[in-house]
């Protein structure tokens, strides 16, 4: 067999091996309030097969779909009524899995000093943390941190950009 053909066959073989029969954990229940940990279903695996476990994902499962960003007015850390349902939905996800850890990242727009904006972003993150806590989310599952003005979502020097940067993001880590 020529070298080229051998490499080609090996390449295809490797490719095929890559598409293993990994059992995926269930994705994105929209409103799943079950409290049990996700269970790996091996029944469909071939006899003698191996079901891979990704220690990185542990028990957490996939990140829930849906909006995770709360936006704020200038100099404000008040959660506006239009974001209440987002907070409620996220609270549901977090409570559904006690092992889940989220970090709420607070941000500001680019105007003003970096340290004061760090503190303002912290207020925003904590407003969301408090709101989650009021909905029954355990304190131990949530950390509130701030990026101040260091990580804008949108570049720009006008209100259109600024309004998209004044935010708190719920990050599943």
């Amino acid at each position, binding site marked *: 067999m020529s070298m080229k053909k051998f490499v080609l066959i090996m390449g295809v073989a490797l490719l095929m091996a890559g598409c293993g029969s990994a059992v995926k954990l269930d994705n994105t229940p929209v409103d799943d309030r079950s409290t049990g940990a996700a269970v790996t279903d091996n029944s469909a695996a071939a006899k003698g097969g191996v079901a891979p476990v990704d220690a990185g994902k542990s028990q957490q499962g996939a990140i829930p779909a849906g909006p995770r960003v709360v936006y704020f007015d200038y100099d404000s850390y008040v959660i506006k009524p239009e974001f209440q349902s987002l907070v409620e939905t996220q609270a549901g996800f977090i409570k559904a899995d006690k092992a889940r850890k989220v970090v709420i990242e607070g941000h500001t727009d680019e105007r003003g000093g*970096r*340290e004061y904006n760090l503190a303002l972003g912290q207020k925003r993150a904590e407003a969301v943390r408090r709101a989650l806590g009021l909905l029954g989310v355990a304190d131990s599952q949530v950390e509130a941190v701030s990026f101040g003005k260091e990580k804008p979502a949108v570049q720009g020097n006008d209100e259109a950009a600024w309004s998209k940067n004044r935010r708190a993001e719920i990050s599943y880590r």
Partner: protein
Amino acid sequence: MNKRYVCGLLAGILCWPALAQFRVEVSGVGLTQLPIAFAPFRGDEASPQKIAAIVQADLERSGQFRIVEGAASAMDENTLPDLFPWRQKGADSLVTGSVTRLADGRFDVRFRLWDVVRGKDIGRDGQVVVKGDLRLAAHRIADFIYKTLTGDRGIFSTRIAYVTKAAQRYDLWVADADGENAQSALTSPESIISPAWSPNGAYLAYVSFESRKPVVYVHEVATGKRRLIANFRGSNSAPAWSPDGKTLAVTLSLSREGGSQLFTIDIAGNGEPRRLTQSSSIDTEPVYSPDGKYIYFVSDRGGSPQIYRMPAAGGVPERVTFTGVYNISPALSQDGRWIAYISRVNGEFKLHVMELATGNTTPITETSADERPSFAPNSRLIVYATKQQDREALMTTTLDGKIKARLAGQGGDIREPDWGPFQKPNN
């Protein structure tokens, strides 16, 4: 200027092109400026660093000197110059000197300072330095001339720290006070803010976002060794050294109710933070008074951010700023006389200087996005970050705002300066 490669102190291996090649652009007119002239130094042409030009730029940037131009042939410190033409041009002083390359590869740098009016020499000195210290030799000459003619200690041999951002990379740089000779102390894919020199100039405290939340490091500049001093729950930021170098004041959000509050951490202790402020507002940006007795800080307990001061061990704060609704980023001069800060006026963020004894406050810039003022250790200059034509830049200014110099970086954004201390007793 040739591209210079700068080695990261932390890695000790990586070398990157020096991003910030500074040019001095001085603007403004001072009230009283000492007129001084320079005759070309013998040997300067062939020297790797142009000594006379560096000294000249240092003195210009101080705002207290006016360079008197004049053509002259190169002479050295031994030549008796004809002072009359310089007197005619209006110079009060003349500097002569020489740069000689020695057989062992080092350089003998000498100078002499002439009083043009009285027609006599008022100082001379020499240094033998390796090539890498030629700029430092020039800065020491500038310090000598500055001290002799103004009576104040020069800051030209001090260092500044600052941060640059280029694409997805942040660097914390340590550079000479003129912005040259920058070396990277830290490279990170995430932001670095609030560098703060320790009083002995050996350490930099700073906030790093490398672990995806703000934490505070204390970083030994010469060795690159660093210690994670504040990594508590929530955000850790705004490090400030006590004048004795033993305590770091920081802003932490670890209290049960959350919110940014002031704490202190003993450097030599077990790392446990001691709480200083007790409020439900934002308390941040601590800075010690030079005598160590007070901490000035920013608080919005009155409804919007203002600057307060309280006893360094904590206690009832008294308000310091009363004009405007947004006053942040306090910096204090070493002589205890001045506070510089940023005030938002009509939506613009402007550097102000207040005389502490009287409370008189003056805005001193024409720019509108000023940040992070820091005093030179002789209390005569302030370095700050700002935007000019939409590009970030570092500026130095005299306290009256009359003479400004731009330390212009060539590429990337430049921000977060901190002016280092005097290094040795007779700097």
